[in-house]
Each structure stands twice: as structure tokens, then as C-alpha cells.
């Protein structure tokens, strides 16, 4: 593939960013639900 670095890099970065955001969101949500239950 020509420009493979840019292409693969872009797709990998997108996947990583979306995954990281989702993981962080789930983590914050789990914590919030736990605190909600304890209240």
C-alpha cells in the first residue's frame, strides 16, 4: 500500500482514540453508578 504509514497510522489512531474515550466513559459511568447505589 502506498503511503501505508499515513493510512494505517490514521486508522490505528482513530481506533485507539475511540477505544480510549469509550473505556474512560465506561469507567466513569461505573463509578457514578456505584456511588449512586451507595447513596
Amino acid at each position, binding site marked *: 500500500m502506498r503511503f501505508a504509514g499515513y493510512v494505517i497510522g490514521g486508522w490505528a489512531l482513530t481506533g485507539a482514540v475511540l477505544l480510549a474515550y469509550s473505556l474512560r466513559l465506561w469507567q*466513569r459511568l461505573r463509578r457514578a453508578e456505584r*456511588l449512586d447505589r451507595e447513596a
Partner: protein
Amino acid sequence: MTLLHPRLAGALGWTSLAALVVLAMFGLWGAPPDRVQSDAQRLMYLHVPSAWIAYLAFGVTALSSALYLWRRTRSPVWDRLAGASAELGVLFTALTLVLGSLWGRPVWGVWWAWDARLVTTAVLFFLYVGYLALRRVPSAVETRAKRSAIAALIAFVDVPIVHFSVNWWRTLHQQATVFTPSLNAHIHGVMAFTLWWGVLAFTLLYVYLLDKRYRLEALEEDRDARELAQAIDERVQGAGVAAPAERAEVGADR
């Protein structure tokens, strides 16, 4: 406290993941390389959907903000939705800018160019980063909601102004491929399919993340209200004053 039924949200999550995997298959392999740009063009299948979802997200924020400001429809739901959607909008705008940069480098030879589309997108990014900063300032919920709503609407108005004014420069960014003035798309076949599939996959992901982010916003707001009520209670009891006979229901709004 959610936008979607929990089981629907779960299904949506898995569906969007599957859709993204399919997108990767088409984007990286199934679709042919571009005649002019070769494989660099494959970044379009991420960059364009990302940009459209960012616009969608900010549109949701603007609409929710307007609905909050209008007294007849005022409800915490709109404020929370506005905040949740704006965060996603900033995420996808940042993604759009970075992917555009990665696409531009091999094709234009530069990481960045000062043309209308790029500049407008950069300003858009900063407008909503400011909005998110405003939302993080500690204040009463209604105060923060009203302030943020006005900031969101101004940002939404400012974007076409920026685009309109900057458009008087020559543009390096390519002209619209789909929404051309005659609505005659310049893109066909597998490439067109992959692009629209990308928009679909990103939209599903956006709705899923929006539902989760909205729920987080609602839970955190309730917790803040609860902790404030507790703190007031402790202060009142500590001072030896009789607790008020009635206490307003906190967190009753959904």
C-alpha cells in the same frame, strides 16, 4: 436517566462495533485506491464521517440549548444532552483535524493549510473547547445551564460567519464531493458505498456514546445535588437549628 432502553443501547454498541469493523475491511481493502491520491485517499472514509458526526453533535447541542432556553420546554434533560453531545462533538472535531492532517501530508505535501474549511474547523474546535471549559466552572445547575446554552448558540451562529468570511480566500481543500451545488455526487461505486457506510457506522457509535455520556451527566448532577443537600444538612444540624419541615425533592427531574 437514559436516552435509550438499556438493551437497545447494548445492541447499538455491538452493532456500531461490527459496522466499524466492516468499514475497516472496505476502507482498507475492499475499496479501490484512488486514481490520483492512491491509498492516501482511504483516510477519507474516516475523515468525512468524523466531520459530519461532529456537525451533527454540535447541531444537537445547539438545538438542546435552544430548547433549554425557551421557557416552555425548559428541562434539565436538554442541558445534559447539550453538554454530552458537545463533548462528543469536540472529540470528533479533533479527530477530523488530525485525520485531515494525515491525509493532507502525502497528498498536498503539508500538514496544514490556511484555507476556509480547515480554519473554520479549527475555530469550531476552540469554540466548543471553551464551551466545555465553561460547563466545568462550579455553579448552580440552572445558572450553568443558561450560561452554557447561550455560549453554545453563539458558537453555532459564529461558525457560518467564520466559514462565510474565510471563504473569500482561495481554497486548497477540495470542493464538496457529495453535497455539490447540483447535488450530483462525484463519487461512485464501492467508494461511495464505503463512505456512506462510514457515516452510518459513525452515527451508530455517536448515538451509543451519547446515550452513555448523557447518563453519566445525569448521575453526576444528581450526586452533586445530593452531596450539596447533605452538606447543608450537616451544617444545619451542627448549628443546632431544627431541620426544615419540608425538603425539596432533589434529583427528581430526569
